[in-house]
Structure formats: structure tokens, C-alpha cells
């Protein structure tokens, strides 16, 4: 198999895993105002992701780094064309990280509530904007020989926004289910209920997304020429239905697992339709960035493949170990007495 194709798959996997992991970090933050009523409960939310969010975020660094290494031209144009959107994501990620860390270290209610608000907003914004960015990648960007003909407002087209809302709801449900398996007491019940309620609009938006994709993008062309690919969106939909099914029966662990599968498969649904493009041009297919015209040399791709094959499994192994160490459920009562957590 050609190395470009291997890296196309790896590229999709890295972004999908990033959204699957940081997705619940964003999600717990977005629903925090609705599920946490006291200071101790808000701390439960923070501490539920405390040990893992930083490691999750590195999947983004790696996904970005892999795009840079394997498809430098796509990396360069993706980030410079979507300058303002990337900048807002960046600012939000900076504030998110700091708000987790600093909230518990200052004094007074105002300090805490300021960081709480920052935490919510700085998690909502990247969820929305990553969705907008990927919606626009699926749709294609207005680019030709003269360069790029869009701006931040042109990114906020209906399809981009729809994908943004899809990401926000996916992550919110995902975060709710995560809290349902990592906490106990009132906060667990509220999270379960909220995830269940949010599932309905999520399902509606997901259907709208699948329909809109037929009109706004050319993603389905690949599905027509290689019908076997249809398995991917079918799994996505089945997993999403399973999320709703298990959530209603309070089988949160199964629901959360199904939600992981949903997120990964939603990303794969779009990316499978993109192939062999990384960013299609909406103006002229001649200027689409494909995995062949924007990739690194085969030598570099080979080196990177070796590095990825050795180290990514190691990373996955120790991250699973960490999730197991911190699998115990947290409660507001215990957190209130623990001065050594967030």
C-alpha cells in the first residue's frame, strides 16, 4: 500500500481519537452549569477529567504534528486559510487549560466563578469551531491558483455551522455519559438525565447532517463508487442509536462506549468521503489538496510510519493504564474534604 494512504488513515485516526478523548473534556465543561450546583460538585466535574485532560490534548498536538509531517502543504494551507478560526481555538484551549489549573489556587468566590465561566466558554468554543473547521474541510474551501478567497464569515456557512452544532451536541452527550460513569450521587443522576435529553436533538442534528452532506458536499461520490464504505456511516448511526438505547436504560458504560464509537465513525464518515482529498477546492478540483500532491517525501513518510508503529501503541497502553488508575467514581462529599485535588 502506498505510504500516502497509510498516512491518510493515520491522519483520520489521530483526529478521531482526539475528538473521542478531548470531546468528553469539552463535554463535561459545557454541561457543568447544568449538572453541578455547588462548589464541591463543580470540583467533581473538574477532577473527573483532572488526571487525563492534558494527555488527551496531546492527541491534538500529535494530530497537528502528523498533518505537518505527512502533509505539509495541507497543514500550511489549512492553518493559514482558517487563520482566525484557528486563533480562536488556540485562545480557547489556552484559557481552558489554565482555568482547570488555576481555579482552585486563588481566593474568593469571584475568582472561582470567573474561572468556572472561562472553563465553560473555552470548552464550548473549540467544540463549535472544530466542527465548523471540519464541516468546511468536508465541503471544501474556495481556493485556486490565486490562493484563498474566503474569510471567517465564509467559514460560518450553514453546513459549517451545522457541523459545528453537531460537534457541540456530540461532545455534550459524550461528556454527560462520562460524568455518569465517573461520579456518584446527584451529579451522576443529573448527568445521566441530561445526556438522555440531549440525545434527541443530537439525533435530529445528526440526521440533518447526513442529509445536508448530500447537498453541500461531494462526500457521497466515494460511497457511490465504493458502496462497501457505507458500513462506516451505518456503524455511526447504529452506535448513535445504541447511545440513546443504553442511556435510557441507565447503562452508562455501554452508552459511553457507544458514544466513543459514534464520534470516531462520524469523523471517518466524512474522511472516507474526502479521499483522496485532504481539502477539496470548491472552485476547481485541479486545486484540491490531495494526499498525493500535498504529502511529504516517501522517505519521510516511511520514517514517520516506523515511529508511529512503535510509539503510538505504547502511548495507548500507558494511557489505558492511567484511565484504569482513575476509574473510581468521585463524589461531592469526598472531594470537599480533599485539598490535594483541583
Amino acid at each position, binding site marked *: 500500500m502506498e505510504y500516502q494512504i497509510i498516512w491518510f488513515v493515520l491522519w483520520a485516526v489521530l483526529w478521531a481519537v482526539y475528538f473521542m478523548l478531548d470531546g468528553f473534556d469539552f463535554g463535561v465543561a459545557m454541561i457543568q452549569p447544568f449538572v453541578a450546583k455547588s462548589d464541591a460538585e463543580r470540583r467533581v466535574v473538574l477532577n473527573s477529567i483532572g488526571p487525563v485532560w492534558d*494527555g488527551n490534548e496531546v492527541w491534538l498536538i500529535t494530530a497537528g504534528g502528523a498533518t505537518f509531517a505527512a502533509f505539509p502543504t495541507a497543514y500550511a494551507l489549512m492553518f493559514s486559510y482558517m487563520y482566525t478560526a484557528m486563533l480562536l481555538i488556540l485562545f480557547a484551549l489556552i484559557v481552558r487549560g489554565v482555568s482547570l489549573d488555576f481555579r482552585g489556587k486563588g481566593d474568593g468566590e469571584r475568582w472561582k466563578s470567573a474561572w468556572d465561566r472561562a472553563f465553560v466558554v473555552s470548552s464550548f468554543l473549540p467544540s463549535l469551531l472544530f466542527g465548523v473547521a471540519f464541516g468546511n474541510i468536508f465541503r471544501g474551501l474556495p481556493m485556486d491558483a490565486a490562493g484563498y478567497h474566503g474569510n471567517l464569515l465564509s467559514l460560518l456557512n450553514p453546513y459549517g455551522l451545522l457541523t459545528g452544532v453537531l460537534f457541540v451536541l456530540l461532545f455534550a452527550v459524550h461528556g454527560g455519559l462520562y460524568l455518569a460513569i465517573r461520579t456518584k450521587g446527584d451529579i451522576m443522576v443529573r448527568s445521566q438525565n441530561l445526556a438522555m435529553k440531549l440525545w434527541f436533538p443530537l439525533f435530529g442534528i445528526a440526521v440533518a447532517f447526513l442529509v445536508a452532506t448530500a447537498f453541500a458536499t461531494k462526500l457521497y461520490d466515494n460511497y457511490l463508487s465504493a458502496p462497501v464504505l457505507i458500513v462506516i456511516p451505518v456503524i455511526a448511526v447504529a452506535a448513535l442509536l445504541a447511545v440513546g438505547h443504553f442511556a435510557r436504560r441507565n447503562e452508562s458504560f455501554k452508552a459511553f462506549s457507544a458514544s466513543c464509537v459514534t464520534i470516531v465513525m462520524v469523523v471517518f464518515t466524512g474522511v472516507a468521503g474526502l479521499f483522496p482529498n485532504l481539502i477539496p477546492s470548491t472552485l476547481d478540483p485541479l486545486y484540491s489538496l490531495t494526499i498525493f500532491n500535498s504529502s511529504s517525501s516517501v522517505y519521510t513518510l516511511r520514517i*514517520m510510519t516506523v515511529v508511529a508503529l512503535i510509539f503510538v501503541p505504547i502511548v495507548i497502553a500507558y494511557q489505558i493504564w492511567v484511565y484504569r488508575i482513575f476509574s473510581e467514581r468521585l463524589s461531592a462529599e469526598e472531594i470537599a474534604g480533599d485539598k490535594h485535588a483541583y
Partner: protein
Amino acid sequence: MDDVVLLSRIQFAVTAAFHFIFVPLTLGLSWLIAYMEWRYVKTGDEMYLRMTKFWGKLFLINFALGVVTGITLEFQFGMNWAEYSKYVGDIFGSLLAIEATVAFFLESTFIGVWIFGWNRISKKLHAWCITIVAFATNMSALWILLANGWMQKPVGYVLRNGRAEMVDFWALVTNSYGWTKFLHTLTSAYILGAFFVMAIAAYHILKKSNVRLFKVSFRYAAVLALASSLLVLGSGDFHGVEIAKVQPTKFAAMESHWETKKGAGYPLIVVPDPDNERNAIEAVTIPNMLSLLAFHDPNAEVKGLRDFPKEDRPPVMITFLSFRLMVAMGMFFILVSLAAVYLSMRDKLEANPWFLKLMLYSLPIPYIGVQIGWIVAEVGRQPWAVYGVLRTADGVSKSVEPIQVIMSLIGFTLLYGTLAVIDFYLLKKYAKKGPDEDLTEFVKMTRV
């Protein structure tokens, strides 16, 4: 286009310099904390636990900003330097991706275990976590500096398909420039970490709070400072020789050396006059010294700036001043560390409050030192982004408008300014507060 170049350069300088306020402390302090925690594991003495937790708290406040400001640097190559990214992504991008995969994951995952794992894993495993973090941050630095080393001394590539393509990965990994730079940067970061500990320890010893704990902390840091400041000098000397060989324009700018000479002397007092391509004042010259420093040979020929076309020369004044100041600071670190080791080993710190005050007020010096070190390295490389291969001006994004960079620069300045104030406030608060008095309850909670 020119505006975008200038604005993007300012933005890169601001965001990179800001990132490097936090990184060196992480690099140095992590090893000290690991050592403290291992002392606790070995002796069971609660003082070492209090010590670990006190320095650990400051470490984490600092670490958070180091992590979040690091993402900016990765994003920025694509956002502002798209042409650069396209041109060198094959090489530079790979090194960044490897850094994330082999080092940054390790660091970010195990720091989480270290912060939250006190009551979930054994004492030994917990000490291992901070040791892994220390190792991983240092590995991170290695890959980043190999990437930067390639920009200074490009190796293992060919120009093909309108870009630089990697042909020899091994040459990249063994690039001597990257390794000397790694040694020099790492040891200077250790100095910073050690001076940080000594300054805060000095404050508490002066206030007579937790004197035993802080005297021990001071001693560890003093030893690290002395060893590192000697290594900084040694690696700096090696580094200088390599610069003279592979980046003659940078070397000449560092020394404000205009005319090519054999057996060049080293004037101790220099006032550069870049407009007239000469030095206004040169005095107290040590004969043959510059040749000796540049090539370890008193009669070697040292190229002067006038031998290079104007458009290939870096800004002289800032490179020269930064370099001189950096060297002066290097000497200061050696002298002060010697005294610090002597006084703390002989238990004479309390008898010499003036020295403790000196240590306290010296805290900004290593911070300034590491910043101007980077100024020498990066300004001295100009006008090149990749020395001799790609000019900085040719690396900028074509699609980005000046207004976008103005807005982002304002955004970064406001955001980073705010974060700096908050970070400083928190560090000061917890540094002054001192260690937790009683950890008996906490120890009960932890596992054996």
C-alpha cells in the same frame, strides 16, 4: 506582504519568548523535585514530602502555562509561516511530530498521574511518575532543539520538488549543532531552576521559617547550579566554535567583528557602529583571543561582516549586546554558585544574610539570561529562517492579511499579559506561604 512579515516576526518573538519563560523552570525543577521525592521514599522523613509538595505546587503553576503556550508555537508555523511549513515540513514537521509522540505524551500523561495519584499508587511508583515527567520534558527539549538545530545547520536533506526533502534521518538526529544547543539550553535551564529554588529558599531562611527544609533545598539547588553553570560555559565554548564554522555571519555579529583577520584579537570594550560598518571604540584588546575562541587556534582567520553582502547580515547591535550580556551572566552564575555551594555545605547561610538577599534578588537574572540566549540564536540567524536555505521573509503565509496578524498580535499580548500577571500572583502567593505544616492526614491517605 512586508507588513505581514514584520508583524508575524514580532508575534513569533512574543509568543516564543513567553513560552520560554515557563519551559526552563520545568526542565530544571522537575529533576530537583524528583530527587526530593526519592529522598522521601528512601528515608520516610516527612520533611522531604513537604518539600516535594511545596516545590511541586510552584512547579505545577508554572507547568500549566508552559503547556498551553506551547500549542501556540505548533499552530503558528501553519498559521503565519505557511510557505516555511510547505518548504521544510518534510523535515521540520517530522521532528515536531516525533516530539509529540515520544515525549510530550509521556510528560502530559504522567504529570496527571503525579498530581492526582498520591492516594492511588504506591510511593515508589509515584516518585517514578515525576522522574518520567523530568525525563520526558528533557526529551521534548531534545527533539525541539534538533528541529531548531536543523534551521541553524541544515543537514540530511536535498532541495527537490521546490522544497527541502529529508534524505538522511540519521544525520538529522545526530546533527552536532542540535546536540550542543541541547546541552547548552538544558544546562542553562537547570541554572534557572536552581536559582529559582535558591531565591525562594533564601527568602524563607531569611524569615526563619522552615529553616531546615529550605536549607536542604538550597543545598540541592546550589550543587545543581554549580555543575550546570560550568557545563553551560563548556557547552557554550563548543557551541561558539561550531557557530564560527557553520554560521560565520552570526559569529561575526555576536562579536561585532567587521574585518576578516588572521590571529584576531578580542577587544574587551567595544562600541559597535553598524551604520559605518565598523566599531566606534575598541579597547583593551587581548591578542589572538578571538581566533582562539572561534577555532581553538590563535592564528586562525576569522571572517568579518564586511566580507558578506549586506542583505545576508543579521542585525549587529542586538546580537552583539545580547551575546556580551549573556557571557557576563554566565560568569556571574559560576561565581555565585561557587559561593552558594561553599556557604550551604559549611552551613554558613544564616550567618551571611547579605548573600541570601543577593540570591533572592538575583532571581530575574537567569530568566533574562535564557531570553537573550535565544535572541543571539534567532536574531543572529537572520535574515535566514533556515540558514543559507530559506529567507525568513520568504517563509510567511501568502493568504494572511496584515489586519489579521495585528488582531492576533493584540489578542496574544492581552491574553499573555493577563496570564503573566495571574501566574506571577499565584507563584508569589504560594512561594511566600511556604510548605504545608502538617501532612499527617495526607500521609495516611497515601499508599505504601
